Structures are given as structure tokens and as C-alpha cells.
């Protein structure tokens, strides 16, 4: 049984001139001990889908129209706030994109890490011991000294490690990492990515890893979900998405990754702009204005789920396997 299941989630923002669709009929799930990578361009709903899981979306003007989010038997959307609080920051924790703005500049990391520890019967000394142990585990060589530093005294990579330690402290079942590698240097990303692998392998914690960088997602994930225009367009094992993509968008996205040393100097690209769901509406494939294979049915209805081996995808004109 999957750990977290999102079923037919449809949400939108209320504007003065109507509703803007954000997520459209989105379904995905993640099993215990699995790493699910979510890729997609800005505005495709990657972050909004996980923020909805944790109830971190602004209440005002954000409408959850239908769907359910199942976690350990309960629906996070209908359960009361008390129950949600017992899960959020305990069983599901989140690592935010920008480490500098996710940490409080006025507090030492000790104070902030103590806050992240749930109220347990541990004494303060035991709590501190646990914090230092966790900091060691995420790669602080001198945790005892660094624990009284302020965020500005740490480098970008170290801040990201503090956030990771914070997410690990409550012994969660699921960690959601929202673009943890996009605000740090390419060379540091490698270390952070291997830390995520270590979390998954050694602690058997499931991870939802969000990024727009295919290389990063591919190096940590077991499965990849490709999102476009608030919808899931393709989900498969990492190799399946990379080697035999079925959706034209996945193919186009893979082709537009620049690769040094490849023959020819013309890089394929996807013409056009990211979709505006107010114009396209939710009864069409959001990719149709930019798709090579577009036909009339793409413009008037969204395709049903198709499957091929382990792959699930939504397209009327899937690419062949070869």
C-alpha cells in the first residue's frame, strides 16, 4: 500500500475575473522507501501539489475543488487541524528551496533545530545530543562548534544541510524536498544529492524530490513524474522516463538539455510559451499549442490514462517505444 496517495486533486486560485486552474485532476502516489522525482517547468504545479499535501497554501483565494490526499489511512484534506498538525512536521517534513530565507536570521541554528524536535520526553541534554548526532550525520564535521552559529555564518551548502537535519529530526516517514539543489552551486549539488540518497538508503525514508533539473532528479529518484500545466502527463521508473518517453513533452524536454560534446551545434527547443490555463481551459491537453502531433481531439478533451509496462501517461499520440 502506498504511503501517500493523491487522487484526482483539482484546485484553483480565485481571481476577480474567475478561477485560475492550478492543479487539474492530479493523481500520484509514493510508496514506502521510494524516491519520487517531480519535474516540470515553472508554473506546472510541482510545488503547489506538495504544499496542498501539507496544507501550506494560502487559505484565502485558494480553492480545493475535488480530490483526496490519503496518508496512513486518513484523508489530509478532510481531517481536522489537530490531526494535520500531528502529521505535518512530524511524519511528513519539508525542505524548502531557499535555505537562507527558510531559516530565521535572528536565531542560532541550535534554537531552530530544538524547535524542529517534537515534544518528547527527552531532557534538554538528550535533545541536544540528538541534534548534534543528526548534524554529524548530515555532514557537519564540527557540529558541536557550529551549533551556536547564526545562518549567515554558514555557507550555502551548510545551510541546506541544517534544513535537511531539521527535516530528519522528527524521524519522519516522508520528506518533501522542494528544489533543494537549485539555489546552490553545481559542485555543492553533488554533495546534497548524495546526502538525499543516504537518507533514503540508510533511514528508509521516502522522499518526494522536486526539481526542474532532469540530471538531479535522475540521480536520486526511483520513479519520475512529469508535470505540465497542473497535470501529470507521464509517470514511470527513472529509466523508463529517460529511455522510452511516451509523452511528446517529456521527449521535447529531454531533447532540450544541452549536452557538451554532442555532434552539431543546433539544440532542439520547444517553441512557444508555458501554458496559460485560463486560455486553454481544463478540457484540453495543456501541451497542445506547442505539440508537433496535435490533432482536433487534443484541443477538445484531455486523454484518458494509458499504460505501457510500468509507464502511465496521458496522450492521444504517444511516441512509439523504439
Amino acid at each position, binding site marked *: 500500500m502506498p504511503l501517500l496517495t493523491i487522487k484526482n486533486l483539482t484546485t484553483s486560485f480565485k481571481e476577480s475575473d474567475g478561477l485560475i486552474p492550478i492543479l487539474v485532476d492530479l493523481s500520484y502516489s509514493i510508496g514506502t522507501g521510494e524516491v519520487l522525482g517531480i519535474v516540470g*517547468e*515553472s508554473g506546472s504545479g510541482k510545488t503547489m501539489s506538495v504544499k496542498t499535501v501539507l496544507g501550506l497554501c494560502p487559505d484565502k483565494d485558494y480553492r480545493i475543488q475535488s480530490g483526496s490526499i490519503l496518508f496512513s489511512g486518513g484523508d489530509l484534506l478532510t481531517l481536522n487541524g489537530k490531526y494535520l498538525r500531528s502529521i505535518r512536521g512530524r511524519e511528513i517534513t519539508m525542505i524548502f528551496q531557499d535555505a537562507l530565507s527558510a531559516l530565521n536570521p535572528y536565531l542560532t541554528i541550535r534554537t531552530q533545530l530544538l524547535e524542529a524536535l517534537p515534544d518528547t520526553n527527552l531532557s534538554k541534554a538528550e535533545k541536544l545530543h540528538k541534534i548534534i548526532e543528526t548534524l554529524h550525520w548530515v555532514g557537519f564535521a564540527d557540529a558541536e562548534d557550529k551549533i551556536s552559529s547564526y545562518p549567515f555564518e554558514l555557507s550555502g*551548502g551548510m545551510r541546506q544541510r541544517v534544513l535537511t537535519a531539521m527535516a530528519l529530526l522528527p524521524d519522519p516517514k516522508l520528506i518533501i524536498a522542494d528544489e533543494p539543489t537549485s539555489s546552490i*552551486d*553545481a*559542485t*555543492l*549539488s*553533488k*554533495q546534497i544529492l548524495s546526502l538525499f540518497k543516504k537518507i533514503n538508503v540508510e533511514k528508509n525514508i521516502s522522499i518526494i524530490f522536486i526539481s*526542474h*533539473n*532532469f*540530471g*538531479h532528479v*535522475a*540521480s536520486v529518484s526511483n520513479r519520475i513524474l512529469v508535470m505540465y500545466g497542473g497535470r501529470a502527463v507521464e509517470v514511470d521508473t527513472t*529509466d523508463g522516463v*529517460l*529511455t522510452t518517453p511516451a509523452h511528446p513533452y517529456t521527449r*521535447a*524536454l*529531454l*531533447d*532540450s*538539455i*544541452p*549536452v*557538451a*560534446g*554532442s555532434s552539431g*551545434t*543546433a*539544440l*532542439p*527547443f*520547444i*517553441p512557444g*510559451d*508555458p501554458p496559460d490555463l485560463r486560455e486553454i481551459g481544463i478540457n484540453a491537453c495543456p501541451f497542445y499549442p506547442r505539440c508537433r502531433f496535435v490533432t482536433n481531439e487534443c484541443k477538445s478533451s484531455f486523454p484518458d490514462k494509458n499504460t505501457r509496462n510500468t509507464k502511465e501517461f496521458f496522450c492521444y499520440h504517444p511516441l512509439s517505444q523504439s
Partner: protein
Amino acid sequence: MLPPTEPILKISGLDVVYKSRLKGLKTVAAEGVSFNVYKNETVGLIGESGAGKSSIANAIIGLVEGEGDVLLHGKEINAYSPLDRYKKIQYIFQDPTSSLDPRYSVFKSISEPLINLLEYDRTQCDARVRELLDAVGIPTIKMHNLPHEFSGGQKQRIAIARALAVNPEIILADEPLSSLDISVQAQIIHLFQDLQKKFSLSFVFISHDLNVIWYLSDYIVVLLGGAIVEKAPKKELFQHPVHPYTKELLSTVIANDKENSTVKKQAFFDSSDIQNPEGGCHFYTKCNIAQKECMNSKPQSKKVGPDHWVTCYSAKTQENCLTQRREDAKAQRKS
């Protein structure tokens, strides 16, 4: 295309040093940097954070003071008035959101250099802005919109249009792609290639991403800790890297086999503990072929191939290199 003999921009022995007023501390951002920019050619500067890429670009255009020679058409850059300088060299910044004035419409942003540098009047501006927006693929109907009404990629296109406005000869582009999504990045790479053909521009293109540099550069300069470790024409550098740092960099490229389109697991080179030993080679602590002399004194730049220079003690001279390559090729054929 064969470069004409005279470079447009000739940089030799450029040093950029930041001094702290309070403590008298010095930070050397660039030292002894030399390279040439020819017409219609793109020079790619590659290096990690702190390698001095941006400092070099800033020194070229005069945003920071550098010591050394920067010659534009054979004339010292400081001899040009700032206005003349900006007519010849334009800059594209990393983050389009902060490089465009949020309260200026696109028209106003792009016509600013036209009015200040070329003294255009309103009708001339109007025609020129339309032409530029066409060239970068922004619908002219959106000419009077504000930056927040555009997506990140569109904003970068607008910033590019503004840089093109005065018909510069050289454009300095400082990581113009790193804040963009992959699909948008591909579009902008295409736009750069297109514009270079159309307007015969020269670019100095700064990036930390070797893959992007591959698509856009003719000549690549590899920087480490403010100094050039290797410079060579693109293909030469990719086929025959000499400096151990360049080799490391190249080995970390995402190996993407287009045949079966596997994005292989991405590897990075970890440079977090590269230190700058007093007076020695910057790569000393990480280098697997380091010798004693590498710690104590800086190697000189050596020519190892056509237009290919390496700053390393272990590098062989040009003659030795060519013999080595012939032997390598023979060995390959045998196996």
C-alpha cells in the same frame, strides 16, 4: 569562420583586486588574465563561483577597476568615454527580473540606451524598439507592458533586446541562462546563435555550465581561483584537455547518449576545499599529479597546440604534445 588577424578586444595581464577599506584585506579576484575576442566569435569563460568570471567581465566594461591592459580596437578602454564604451560593449545580467526596472515599460527600458547613447527621438525609438522586439521574439503588441507581466524567459529576451539596441560589437553575457528553466534555456541558446549570425556579434559568455558553453562558444577559457588554467578553441579543448582541472571538469559533464537518450547519473567535481596556497598553483591540493614545485611557485602559461595554452608544470610543450597525440592515435588503432 577564420578570425581576422586583429582582435576587437584584447585583454592582457588583467588583475582585479578588491580591497577592504576597514581591515586592509585584499581579495584577488583575477590575476594575469589574458585572452582575445575576435569579430563574430564567442569566448566562453567557465569556472565555478569565485573563479573570477564576473569580475573579469565587470573590469572589461569598467564597473570595477582592474589593472592591466584592456584594448578595444587597439585603444585602451579607459581612453573611451563611458558613453562610447557602452555603444561598443553591452552587458546582459544573470537575473532579468532585477536587471529590468519594474516601473519601466518594455518600451521605456529598451529606448533608454537609444535616447542616452544614440540620441534618438520618439518616432525613431518606436521603430527601433519594434525591430528589436521582433528580433528577440516578443510580440510588439506587448511593448508598453511592465516587466512583471512577462515570464522569466521573456524578460531575458527583453534584456537581450536592450543590449542589442545600440548595435554593440561585443556583448558580455554573465550567466544569462542560469535562472531559466531547461526548456526556456534551450530557446534562449537558440536565440543567441540566431542573433550572432544576424548581427555578426562577438560574445563573452560566462557560465558555470560546460554544456551551455559547448553550444555557444568558439573559444573556451577555463578559470580557477581567478587565474586562467587552460584556454583553447572549443573542439581542441574537448578532445585534448591538458590541465588536470579541465580534465576533471570535462569528466563531470552529463554524459548523454543521444542514441538511446539516457541521461546518465550526473557527476560533479567537488571543489569545496580548493584553497589558494600562497604563491602556488590553485589546483595543488586537489591535483593527482602535483609535484613539489606546484606548491611553491605558479607555473607559466605554455603553448601546447594551435591557440591552446595551459598553465601547468606537467604540461608538455607543443612538439611533445603533438608526438604524444600521434602515439595515442596509433595505440587506439591497434586496440
